[in-house]
């Protein structure tokens, strides 16, 4: 594998060649001070403890296509990613702005299509397979389509964040944001006593409030359920976890049926009407009468009830057209068009391979670009040029040439790294960040995010299906008063030092 010669921005700025503490970014100062005296075996035993606990609680996922179908853990890293309050307020404002515009876009594209008439988004978008003509003219409560949106952010320098993609269909990972936090509080209570870390555990309550708020007009006490493909789905743990946290029924397709323009669930006391379905099943499988006829997961007749306003689906049917990589390019324009605002978050510069010039450029620079399949997800259909072998590049080239419009290309971003516990010690690994934006009566997000980390050295692919792990994300409060934060951090590091036995084996830093 070819190693990139680039210097990456590190969240902690832990520079192994110069063990100079002044290099450490100030929000990490105390953490670094605490960390550098902790022996490797101690961190490693914390990591093992976490793994044991996760396994006992059953925080596992299934990997598609693995022969034994065994449940696996998503690797959890004990070193958190820290974000200052200032950084967070910028990111969250940007994410909220983006989701607002995307919801307006979805309403528009299924109604008057003004953005197409204005010539901002091409009409070819209506031919995208994620565009659902069945949704044309359908009104959804509060005009919200993406009730839950996961916005993937990456960082390349102190001040530069990019939106990598918007996840508007059935974004997953929020359970790791919540469980990783619980785990960190259990493993390192001393850090939580001193740091002012913003709380995230009210997420399920905010979500439930939003879901109740988008029930059809006039329903007093709506029944909300979570529709899951079942125990063999890779994200089943998350479905169960969130349903439990919200105190709602976790249903499968066979639990629901349609009668007289309403959806009911089968209970031990007879049928019970369902008003809002938080569904974690893709559009294609949700109603075998309309979409994939072979689907055993969905509910026959559900779409017809939905279109007639008999039930609310979250997220709405047809949101995929807005998070497709072919649509991504237009999001900054959407923000200007619908909100009249300048985008707060930037897109990654993107080449559209349906355009001849972009295609030519891409084919000549495959070794330095990331090529992604549009309508693909999960990191399966992508090429990371700098990390790929010649053979892989040539194979991908053939795929691109046969259907250029199926791909987009982006420069390989110098994704920031965050110190991560690996076998040999602590080493930088690339990270991304997925905050979850919730839309109901208002658009909000809890101060936290799923932080995914590519555990393989040099790898830029953070997906859990491709060997990625997770980290807890700490959004620090009181960031306006930086001195206060610094003081409390300094006290912490002093106390920690005093409490510690002298240890010979120090954490080794691997470069």
């Amino acid at each position, binding site marked *: 594998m070819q190693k990139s010669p680039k210097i990456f921005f590190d969240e902690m700025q832990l520079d192994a060649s110069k063990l100079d503490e002044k290099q450490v970014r100030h929000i990490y100062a105390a953490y670094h001070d605490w960390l550098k005296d902790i022996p490797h075996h101690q961190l490693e035993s914390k990591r093992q403890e976490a793994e044991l606990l996760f396994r006992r609680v*059953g925080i596992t996922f299934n990997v598609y296509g693995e022969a034994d179908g065994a449940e696996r853990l998503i690797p959890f890293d004990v070193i958190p990613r820290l974000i200052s309050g200032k950084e967070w307020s910028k990111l969250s404002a940007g994410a909220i702005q983006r989701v607002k515009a995307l919801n307006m876009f979805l309403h528009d594209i299924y109604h008057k299509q003004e953005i197409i008439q204005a010539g901002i988004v091409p009409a070819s978008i209506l031919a995208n397979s994620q565009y659902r003509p069945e949704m044309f003219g359908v009104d959804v409560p509060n005009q919200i389509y993406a009730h839950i949106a996961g916005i993937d952010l990456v960082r390349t320098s102190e001040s530069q964040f990019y939106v990598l993609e918007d996840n508007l269909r059935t974004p997953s990972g929020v359970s790791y944001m919540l469980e990783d936090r619980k785990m960190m509080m259990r493993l390192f209570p001393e850090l939580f006593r001193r740091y002012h870390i913003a709380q995230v555990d009210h997420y399920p309550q905010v979500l439930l409030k939003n879901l109740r708020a988008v029930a059809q007009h006039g329903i007093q006490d709506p029944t909300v359920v979570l529709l899951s493909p079942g125990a063999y789905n890779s994200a089943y743990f998350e479905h169960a976890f969130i349903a439990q946290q919200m105190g709602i029924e976790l249903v499968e397709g066979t639990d629901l049926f349609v009668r007289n323009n309403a959806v009911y669930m089968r209970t*031990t006391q007879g049928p019970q009407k369902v008003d809002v379905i938080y569904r974690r099943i893709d559009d294609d499988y949700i109603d075998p009468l309309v979409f994939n006829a072979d689907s055993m997961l969905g509910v026959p007749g559900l779409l017809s009830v939905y279109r007639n306003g008999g039930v609310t689906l979250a997220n709405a049917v047809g949101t995929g057209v807005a998070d497709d990589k072919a649509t991504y390019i237009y999001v900054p324009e959407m923000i200007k068009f619908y909100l009249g605002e300048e985008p707060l978050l930037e897109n990654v510069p993107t080449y559209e391979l349906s355009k001849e010039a972009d295609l030519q450029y891409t084919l000549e620079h495959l070794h330095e670009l990331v090529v992604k399949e549009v309508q693909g997800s999960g990191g399966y259909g992508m090429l990371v040029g700098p990390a790929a072998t010649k053979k892989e590049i040539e194979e991908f080239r053939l795929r691109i040439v046969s259907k250029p419009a199926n791909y987009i290309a982006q420069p390989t971003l110098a994704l920031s790294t965050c110190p991560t516990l690996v076998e040999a010690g602590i080493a930088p690994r690339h990270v991304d960040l997925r905050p979850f934006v919730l839309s109901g009566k208002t658009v909000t997000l809890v101060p936290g995010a799923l932080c995914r980390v590519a555990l393989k050295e040099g790898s830029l692919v953070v997906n859990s299906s491709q060997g990625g792990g997770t980290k807890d994300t700490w959004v620090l409060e009181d960031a306006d008063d930086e001195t206060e934060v610094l003081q409390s951090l300094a006290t912490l590091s002093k106390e920690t030092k005093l409490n510690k036995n002298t240890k010979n084996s120090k954490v080794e830093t691997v470069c």
Partner: protein
Amino acid sequence: MLSRTADHLYWMARYIERAENMARVLEVTYSMSLVPNAAQSEAALWLPALEISGNVDAYEEEYGDVNAADVIHYLAMDADNPSSIYNALRNARENARAVRVAMTSETWENINALWLEFSQFIGQDLAKSGLREFCDWVKARSHLFRGVCFGTMLRDDAFSFVRLGTFIERADNTARLLDVKYHLLLPEEEEIGGAVDYYEWSAVLRSVSAFQAYQKIFSDTIVPWRVAELLVLRRDMPRSLHACLDEISPILEQLSGARHTECRRLAGELHARLRYGKMQDIFQHGLHEFLSDFIDSNNLLGAEIQRAFLSINAS
């Protein structure tokens, strides 16, 4: 609550109880094999264990001869035996996993931990050593399961279905155990009250944790009809048929509410038979006949519970 959820909870509890009862049968048979007894061959000793689980034919097809090592493996670990302890625990955990939301996190973690711990026994030759530890472990986990349900679950329908599963399964198991043992232990010509008999019957009692209870209640030598009375009619004996119906009947009353369900009627009828029945009458008509009839009725009751509450096809 969702019918599917109720179904998973009910079967989760049944499978745990099944594993426990199988462990009891194995343990007691193993104890008996340690008592010097020239009259009984290894095969004759281990055959009842297979009969209780109702799988003699399947066993013979797979293993041929009846011997201790094979029976132990078949009943404890065989993945192809649907009622092996291995499968019972695996099914219990799969059912729990499907509805982990419907139980407290303690209950779920308890069952998940059970399954993780189970792996330590896989590949072990239990016939050679460790069978007793294994059986103790299964029983302890089952006690723990009932305890965590009892101690943490809201007293709602979910709890009722868990209890229902436990007692339907237990009634079936106690009836089978008694039937097989009674049948085998009462050869016409043999005199009752011999030393062998004592060991055999005390083993039956021990297998349902009733040995001390027997001594306490009767303070007398162990005789078969009293053992039968203890396990059929005594309502204060927690594994007796009467005690099981004492639990089942009110749960079905409460779950049925205003509905007239067949399962509620059936449970009431069975309950009355045990509540007002006399041991003398039961013996007059034949204990074996009584027990087979009970096993059939209990199966029917299970099917009716399924039809009234659990079957997801009934909309």
